[in-house]
């Protein structure tokens, strides 16, 4: 991997090591074995005769398994090695490692093989913020077993290291005395298990305490099954096929079965640091993946419903009906030094919950789930009016009540400077960002449909529709920036327009809150030079006071953002423009070998010729992984209509033909076909690309 770190994972258990397989972490260094948001190994170093090993190569076999080829000595010059070592490691409720040593000599050799092990039991939050521990450590040496343990009051976490081969165990590791014949081979199986204290029995469904670990063949079968049950893509543009496959494999890796889902999976937010339930990320990713893996949506809806807020709790920013932002299991959460048990400070997940429920029904026809979640959906709809209208002005806004450890910005652009005026000033709190109003509008419209269709409550449906229409009318008056014809980013506390031009306008198209008469002007901006970089729509337009092409939410291009913008463009009938966005983002994906990053630089495509990666800790990121999936949907114009799937393709001409076979839904399985026709100019290509710079224009080919 690009950062020289090797990562493998299964659910929220993951290992980050160097390219030799060793772990040597400090408090702030992000390597180690992690599970349930706690580090369970901070040191894991293999030596032979006291010498560190030098990596020759690393095979990423699967997302949960890696093989390291090593030779003794760390010199830069490769001398003919007399020994070689293979470490094969797989994650599974801890990890399992087989160390094999080969003697390439004619003579017998005696070796001292040593694994040094230690653990700081850091909470993920401590690793991020480099904080110190408050509990105490103990170590226990047993026969072929080393137990590392951390306790703080009733809190307990432990790591159990055991070996199949006889070992001399001391408090700092395991030593093997190995005698190798000429051309002989020796191996040992090392097992590292995590123990979560008292609640493990209830949580670690697949954990040691509860039964056998999953076997590697079963994990491989699971991955094969996952790939085989997704729609098959046929296409004459190889890059897209590779991107599609990458997305499916990464989405498989990002699947996460929290303890209460009964073994079903939902998408976690990002690998490895965000392998947790995040309301917003799980919902957006489930929406993107609906035509491909609709079961992710149902698990997301059920799980978030189970954790839906029921009370007012300022520390957790919890309200009745609110959908959680993030759930964590580590020490700081346990001792309420962080509010993530769960934390609810997020203003969009709740309306988006209703949006996902409706979209899920439109695709799958699963009314049973809609009936089952009626209470939760009504509570979410109620939250919008009852708890989110902080200023009593009929708009959703946010302001944290936990001022110490709560989140200041509770929209997806959650960095401190993401919401600004054109001149760079920051508004006060509460903040009513524009996309939140769009989501609230969409939630009401969709909630009305479900109320009429499934809950048989026409009175509720009428009321929601009335409120939605009223919200749309006021929104189009209060947020519309008259002189430049786009929607303001937010309303300030005094009702004035926070007037920077931002990508949020695209989400407004997606929500349907945009007046038809205003859509054209909005689209002109989205595809215009201030917002469109040639690769995609920037988070913030150039010329804005805070614009910075490598500023997190103030100028970079976010693939996920663009996928929803493309959906919005389709919603308002701007097919060709949607195809241009798809072309730009999918071209960028090719530069990242099919794995779109969370964000990349907002430089103009003509300037850099390649997308400039923005450094992020997590890769793959769930909603970036879902982006190519949603773009396939928008390019093919897939839209459920009653019991049928409508296909209305608009592909960039670089794609001659595109077939998506076996799309699951209420129609059973259907195939969609499309041919390229939206012309996007191609010049100065570094490699075969779809969309290209600057004066790109749309032209109907036939």
């Amino acid at each position, binding site marked *: 991997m690009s950062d020289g770190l090797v990562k493998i994972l299964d659910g929220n258990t993951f290992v980050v090591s160097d390219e030799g397989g060793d772990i040597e972490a400090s408090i702030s260094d992000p390597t180690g074995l992690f599970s349930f948001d706690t580090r369970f190994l901070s040191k894991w170093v293999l030596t032979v005769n006291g010498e560190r090993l030098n990596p020759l190569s690393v095979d990423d076999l699967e997302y949960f398994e890696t093989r390291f080829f090593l030779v003794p000595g760390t010199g830069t010059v490769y001398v003919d090695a007399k020994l070689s070592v293979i470490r094969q490691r797989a994650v599974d409720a801890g990890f399992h490692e087989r160390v094999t040593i080969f003697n390439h000599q004619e003579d017998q050799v005696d070796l001292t093989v040593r694994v040094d092990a230690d653990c700081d039991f850091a909470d993920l939050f401590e690793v991020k913020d480099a904080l110190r521990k408050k509990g105490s450590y103990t170590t226990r040496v047993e026969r072929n077993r080393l137990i590392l343990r951390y306790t*703080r*009051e*009733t*809190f*307990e976490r432990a790591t159990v290291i055991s070996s199949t081969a006889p070992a001399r165990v001391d408090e700092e590791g395991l030593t093997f005395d190995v005698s190798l014949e000429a051309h002989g081979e020796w191996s040992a199986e090392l097992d590292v298990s995590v123990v979560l*204290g*008292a*609640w493990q*029995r*209830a*949580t670690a469904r697949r954990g040691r305490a509860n039964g056998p670990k999953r076997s590697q063949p079963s994990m491989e079968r699971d991955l094969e099954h996952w790939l085989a049950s997704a729609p098959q893509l046929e296409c004459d543009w190889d890059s897209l096929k590779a991107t599609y496959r990458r997305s499916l494999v990464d989405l498989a890796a990002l699947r996460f079965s929290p*303890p*209460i889902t*009964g073994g079903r999976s939902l998408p976690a937010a990002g690998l490895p640091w965000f392998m947790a339930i995040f309301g917003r990320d799980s919902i957006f990713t489930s929406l993107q993946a609906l035509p491909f893996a609709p079961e992710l949506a149902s698990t997301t809806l059920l799980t978030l*419903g*189970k*954790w839906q807020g*029921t*009370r*007012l*709790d*300022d*520390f*957790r*920013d*919890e*309200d009745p009906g609110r959908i959680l932002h993030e759930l964590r*299991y*580590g*020490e700081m*959460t*346990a*001792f*309420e030094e962080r509010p993530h*048990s*769960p934390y609810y400070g997020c203003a969009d997940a709740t309306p988006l919950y209703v949006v996902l429920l409706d979209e899920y029904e439109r695709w799958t026809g699963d009314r049973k789930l809609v009936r*089952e979640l009626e*209470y939760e959906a009504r509570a979410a709809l109620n939250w919008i009016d009852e*708890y989110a*209208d*902080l*200023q*009593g*002005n*009929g708009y959703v806004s946010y*302001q944290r*009540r936990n001022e110490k450890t709560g989140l200041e910005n509770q929209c997806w652009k959650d960095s401190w400077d993401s919401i600004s005026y054109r001149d760079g000033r920051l508004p006060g709190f*509460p903040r009513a960002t524009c996309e939140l109003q769009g989501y609230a509008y969409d939630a009401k419209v969709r909630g009305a449909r479900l109320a009429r269709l499934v809950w048989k409550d026409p009175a509720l449906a009428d009321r929601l529709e009335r409120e939605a229409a*009223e919200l749309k009318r*006021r929104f189009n008056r*209060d947020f519309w920036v008259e002189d430049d014809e786009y929607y303001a980013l937010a309303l300030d506390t005094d*009702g004035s327009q926070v007037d920077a031009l931002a990508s949020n306008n695209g989400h407004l198209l997606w929500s349907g809150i945009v007046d038809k008469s205003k859509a054209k002007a909005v689209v002109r901006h989205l595809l215009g030079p201030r917002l469109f970089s040639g690769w995609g729509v920037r988070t913030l337009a150039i010329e804005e006071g805070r614009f910075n092409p490598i500023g997190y939410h103030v100028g970079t291009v976010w693939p996920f953002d663009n996928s929803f913008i493309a959906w919005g463009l389709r919603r308002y009938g701007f097919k060709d423009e949607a195809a241009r966005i798809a072309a730009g983002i999918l071209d960028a994906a090719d530069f990242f070998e099919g794995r779109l990053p969370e964000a990349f630089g907002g430089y103009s495509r003509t300037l850099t010729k390649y997308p400039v990666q923005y450094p992020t800790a997590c890769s793959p990121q769930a909603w970036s992984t879902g982006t190519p999936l949603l773009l396939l949907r928008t390019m093919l114009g897939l839209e459920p209509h009653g019991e049928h799937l409508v296909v209305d393709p608009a592909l960039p001409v670089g794609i001659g033909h595109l077939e998506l076979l076996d799309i699951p839904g209420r129609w059973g399985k259907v195939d969609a076909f499309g041919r390229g026709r939206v012309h996007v100019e191609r010049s100065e290509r570094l490699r075969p690309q779809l969309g290209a710079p600057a004066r790109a224009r749309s032209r109907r080919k036939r």
Partner: protein
Amino acid sequence: MKRPADPTVQFFADLGRRGHEPLLAKATGSVRIDVRDGEHTETWSVSVNDGDVSVGRRRSGAACVVRVDRSLFDRIVLGEENAIAAMLRGALQLEGNLGLLVAFQRLFPGPPKGRSKGRPAGFAQRRS
């Protein structure tokens, strides 16, 4: 608000009177709560069947067994402590079905001092 003399007893008495609880509508199973008070343990068994709730005192098997000190559980039912955080730090011990506990803990109130509905002194009225 005056603190009840025996919050735990009060909590289960109130719950028993409720009959149906929509927050538990999707839960089915029994939760047994063993409340320790020094040497002495008191048991409450809550049976949930699609939201219909009944409370008993029999020490029977249950899908979800919670063990907790009296002083902590008193604070939990008053909203002064959070059940999930307590579980994560092992102060509340759980055996069995976590999903039932997640459903059940929704019945606990929020913190008495943390209930400011986040609406600051509203100056803006709904404009229409």
